[in-house]
């Protein structure tokens, strides 16, 4: 095998430009696959960290009557969690309502949060320090869609515990910026105590969010959701994106492999005399097949070296600086940061290397098998077989 590598290396280097064209396209494929996957992995990691920070916490307990996918369950989907179970958790009460910015009705979800909680990243201190009668927090997406700014007052309507409509002006005391769209669009945040006060409810919550030290476990009357379960939807979306994006690099890889395949077919066609010479010098046909297969496989090894030389500084820079995402992507409803820092894991690089090297070796082997059936006499004459 060492001999096959030595000879293959000499043959490839000797082939000059033809080799470097194949190597260039394979190296580009390497870089693209690693970059794309690194980008998606970076997005995934950032999205999960952000979602944990703003929405999931260390896990959730949802009232058994509340179904996040069914808005009709909000009305009665609340309860009181025994205090011994509520350790390391913060309650959130959900109520439906509407706001009327510029006279237009805007359906919203009112979320009551503890003003001294530190489980989620909301700037709850803004609610504490406000002198307004009903201070609220809104996210940048709602602010944009309603044209509301800090200091603006807007009429809010809600139902109390008996179902009676009530209304009052609320004041925006902070527009927070979060990459997690699902906690922003159509939602306002106010003090839980204030929400109790305006709805007449007391000491109840729709859900509890686990903080540091919380271990997900079942509680009677409540449905426990751990982090993996909560993030499964986001992960599924990202994986779908990854799969659809992979079509691009599969195509590119296919082109690169086709180039190698063509080169191999052409080599075997054009280098018949050389093959005959190898056999006349005492190589077995299997050794010649091995030599040609290694030659094809070595394109990917050379490409890997080129990709490392180009890719290491490039990817280091990109992962440090990050990639700015267009503002339009923030309104897609999927958690996307303003700047995504691609994450190039060792496993990603090794997996890509193995994928490309194995593919290149297989496509090199396929035409090389023909050599095993060649007649050395005809090969020496250069006769097409």
């Amino acid at each position, binding site marked *: 095998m060492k001999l096959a590598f030595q*000879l293959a290396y000499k043959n490839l280097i000797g082939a000059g430009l033809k080799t470097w064209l194949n190597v260039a396209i394979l190296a580009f494929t390497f870089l693209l696959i690693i970059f794309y996957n690194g980008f998606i992995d970076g997005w995934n990691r950032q999205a999960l960290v952000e979602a944990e920070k703003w929405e999931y916490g260390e896990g959730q307990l949802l009232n058994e009557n509340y179904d996040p996918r069914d808005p009709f369950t909000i009305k009665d989907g609340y309860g009181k969690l025994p205090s011994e179970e509520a350790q390391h958790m913060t309650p959130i009460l959900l109520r439906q309502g509407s706001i009327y910015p510029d006279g237009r009705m805007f359906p919203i979800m009112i979320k009551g949060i503890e003003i001294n909680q530190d489980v989620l990243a909301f700037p709850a201190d803004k609610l504490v320090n406000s002198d307004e009668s009903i201070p609220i927090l809104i996210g940048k997406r709602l602010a944009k869609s309603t044209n509301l700014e800090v200091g603006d007052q807007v009429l809010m309507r809600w139902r109390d515990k008996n179902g009676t409509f009530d209304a009052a002006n609320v004041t925006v005391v902070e527009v927070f910026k979060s990459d997690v769209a699902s906690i922003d669009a159509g939602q306002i945040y106010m003090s839980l105590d204030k929400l109790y006060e305006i709805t007449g409810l007391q000491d109840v919550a729709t859900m509890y969010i686990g903080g540091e030290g919380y271990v997900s476990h079942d509680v009677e009357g409540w449905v426990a959701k751990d982090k993996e379960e909560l993030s499964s939807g986001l992960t599924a979306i990202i994986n779908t994106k990854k799969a659809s994006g992979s079509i691009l690099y599969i195509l590119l890889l296919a082109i690169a492999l086709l180039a190698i395949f063509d080169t191999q077919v052409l080599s075997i066609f054009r280098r018949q005399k*050389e093959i005959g010479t190898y*056999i006349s010098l005492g190589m077995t046909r299997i050794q010649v097949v091995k030599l040609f297969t290694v030659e094809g496989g070595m394109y990917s090894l050379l490409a890997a070296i080129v990709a490392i030389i180009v890719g290491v500084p490039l990817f280091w820079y990109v992962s440090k600086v990050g990639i700015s995402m267009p503002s339009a992507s923030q309104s897609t409803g999927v958690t996307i940061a303003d700047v995504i820092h691609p994450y190039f894991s060792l496993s990603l690089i090794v997996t890509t290397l193995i994928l490309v090297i194995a593919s290149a070796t297989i496509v090199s082997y396929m035409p090389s098998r023909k050599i095993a059936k060649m007649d*050395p006499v005809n090969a020496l004459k250069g006769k097409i077989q």
Partner: protein
Amino acid sequence: MNTETIISIENLTKQFPEGDGFFTALKDINLTFKKGEFTGVVGPSGSGKTTLLNIIGSLDKPTSGKVNVLGLDIGNLSHKESANLRNKHIGFIFQVYNLLPVYTVFENVEFALLLQSYTKSERKKMVMESLEWVGLGDQASKRVTKLSGGEGQRVAIARAMVKRPQIVIADEPTANLDAANAHAILKTMKKLNQELNTTFLFSTHDEKVMTYLDRIIHLRDGKLESEEFISHENDKV
């Protein structure tokens, strides 16, 4: 000259498929070759010269009959055994040299040794010795694509001789060379034949080659037409 028989051919027939039938390239050939012979197989195109040498060189197999080379029955050798025979005991010289274009002179000659278990220093010594034989010791690092036709063929001779084979098969070795180069090549081969007692088998219809041969085998239409032994008692290369 050693009288040991190293090649014996009995009733050799070789046929190739052609259309619905067969083309008979060699028919009922009986020959023996002794160690140290400098023999030419001559005849017009299509007479079966190259086919005969290919079978002796275990690049091809007989359709019927028996070909025994260095005690091995060519018809019954596996691919691996054939390769081993060629690698260790048979050197080839081709009409168009068949050098490996991406390698240097040294690497081309070294190639045959790479398939055997010589150390790097042993290989270097053998290659340089072989290149000295053919007068190319100072061109070892040159690319073979930069060589003239005569030099290229001398590299091919060095490659064939480097492993000290018992038999060298040369298929029309002078066909692509001018007269001066052809004589130079033939003198080199004759010298190696005399010094190393290597058996040389040529296929040729070049008159220049004939003057160097000890034995000429005439083939016509795949049949052995005649053979003649030429004495060169007083010749010295």
